[in-house]
């Protein structure tokens, strides 16, 4: 009843944990039932190991959290050798998020993952606000973005999602690039560039001055972006992400057309909650006497 199909890949339900908010993917495997979820996205993988940014990397803001983690991860070699064998045994669909500093790095990462793993879905992270090279910068120029997306699409037939930075003004052109490159979905959106200041210390709250804002504070803006994109591309699947803290928030994104919904910052605060969202969504649908397909995009058409 909650199943979602994107091309030939079936998701048990629309609830997925967002990259960077669920560790390597297995940390909570002994504490909660991962099979409840539609999928999990382990922390973004890069070609080389990254130590991440200096501390402090986090600052809490009203109803939000700014992070400048900087894609800390052990690199692709360790992912394939150490992390993936553990993830493979988990009773949940794995979606791999990757980020490169160059187009060639993205292509190489994806080639390795296609060759060494059975992962069916890849989220191309084009939106990390916390790295010096790559990440967000590829989304700035639509031509560069299109070139990158086409080269990535050439690597594999498996499902590809492009995760874009949030933008309330120029998002349509970027999503058009994603659609025309033959990608299977767009993920909207990553965190918002943000900063905060500690008035006692008279300094920036983060060692890197700024980072990406997440949490309930961003939900209305990310919801607006999903709505605008779905109005422009009603048939193109959107994976929504940003500030979900309840089943009502999940429904909000589905009503404006999202196929899948990623849950991020909430996992830090209430790690148990994401596992109850699918049942809560089923209860909502039952109460409304509607199917998931009937409420998806209800406000768009």
């Amino acid at each position, binding site marked *: 009843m909650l199943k979602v199909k994107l091309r030939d890949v079936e998701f048990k339900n629309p609830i997925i944990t967002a990259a960077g908010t669920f560790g390597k993917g297995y940390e909570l495997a*002994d504490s909660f039932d991962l099979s409840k979820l539609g999928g999990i996205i382990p922390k973004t993988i890069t070609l080389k190991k990254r130590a*991440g940014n200096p501390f402090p*990397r*986090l600052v809490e803001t009203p109803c939000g959290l700014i992070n400048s983690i900087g894609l*800390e991860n052990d690199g692709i070699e360790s992912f394939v050798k150490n992390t993936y064998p553990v993830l493979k045994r988990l009773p949940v669909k794995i979606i791999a998020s990757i980020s490169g500093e160059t187009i060639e790095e993205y292509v190489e990462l994806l080639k390795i993952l296609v060759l060494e793993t059975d992962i069916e879905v890849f989220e191309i992270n084009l939106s990390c606000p916390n790295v010096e090279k790559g990440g967000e910068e590829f989304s700035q120029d639509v031509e560069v973005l299109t070139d990158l997306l086409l080269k990535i699409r050439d690597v594999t037939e498996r499902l590809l999602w492009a995760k874009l930075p949030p933008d309330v003004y120029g998002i349509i052109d970027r999503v058009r690039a994603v659609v025309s490159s033959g990608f299977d979905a767009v993920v909207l959106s990553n965190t918002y560039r943000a900063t905060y200041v500690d008035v006692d210390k008279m300094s920036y709250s983060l060692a890197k001055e700024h980072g990406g804002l997440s949490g309930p504070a961003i939900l209305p803006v990310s919801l607006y972006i999903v709505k605008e994109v779905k109005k422009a591309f009603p048939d193109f699947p959107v994976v929504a992400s940003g500030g979900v803290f309840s089943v009502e928030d999940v429904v909000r994104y589905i009503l404006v057309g999202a196929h899948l919904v990623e849950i991020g910052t909430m*996992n*830090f*605060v209430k*790690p148990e909650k994401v596992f109850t969202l699918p049942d809560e969504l089923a209860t909502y649908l039952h109460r409304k006497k509607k199917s998931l397909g009937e409420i998806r995009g209800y406000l768009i058409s």
Partner: protein
Amino acid sequence: MPRKIRSERGELIKKRIFGEFGVFTFALPKIAEEVMPGQFVMLKIKDEKDPLLARPFSVFYAEDKVLELFVKRVGRTTTELFALNTGERVNFLGPLGNAFKNAGSSVVLIGGGSGVAPLNFYARKYGFGRFLIGFPSYLEGLFDIFPDGVDIVTEDGSFGKKGYPTDYLSGDEGIVYACGPLPMLRSLEKKRSKNLENTYVSLESMMGCGFGICAGCGVKKRKEEGYFRVCSDGPIFSFSRIAI
């Protein structure tokens, strides 16, 4: 590797306030039964979006389905905690982090301010050779909450020994377990420079999650590049492995 954590509602059954410090006793059956000395819990007072994050607290004592926190009032969450009435319920996640290894009753425990919490749990569960605690000043009733034989040090000398707890270490002790403010840990590092291997510290850090999924907390590795995660690699580290 994964540890089992749980989310559990705890009811405040007793609160004792000593100036800016307080001991809060919660009925928290499951976590209280599982938690070991040195481990911590994440506490969220209100199920609201602001403040958003839960806050980490080392456990002061746990026994018979009851868990105690020893807290200094510093910010929003601790202020909300001090204002809590008995009978009210709050949300806990736990048990989190690693625990002090049971090194028997000859170990030297040294704590400053709210950092005495995890050491008190060790002292009461396993015993101690010496247990030094440091506070700025005398506070009525405060020192009665610690086990017999505790060595009290106050900065102003208003009670017990005068100065800082690290003043009363020779540096040649066997195993030392410590927790406290940064200046105390720095002075401990100097005192124990020949014995860092056997000096274990429990670190405090701002945390996003408390169980290793956000990558928001870290302490520099001493011998190589990179960071340990304070919440899931620690909070307890041998001083020989970290640089503060």
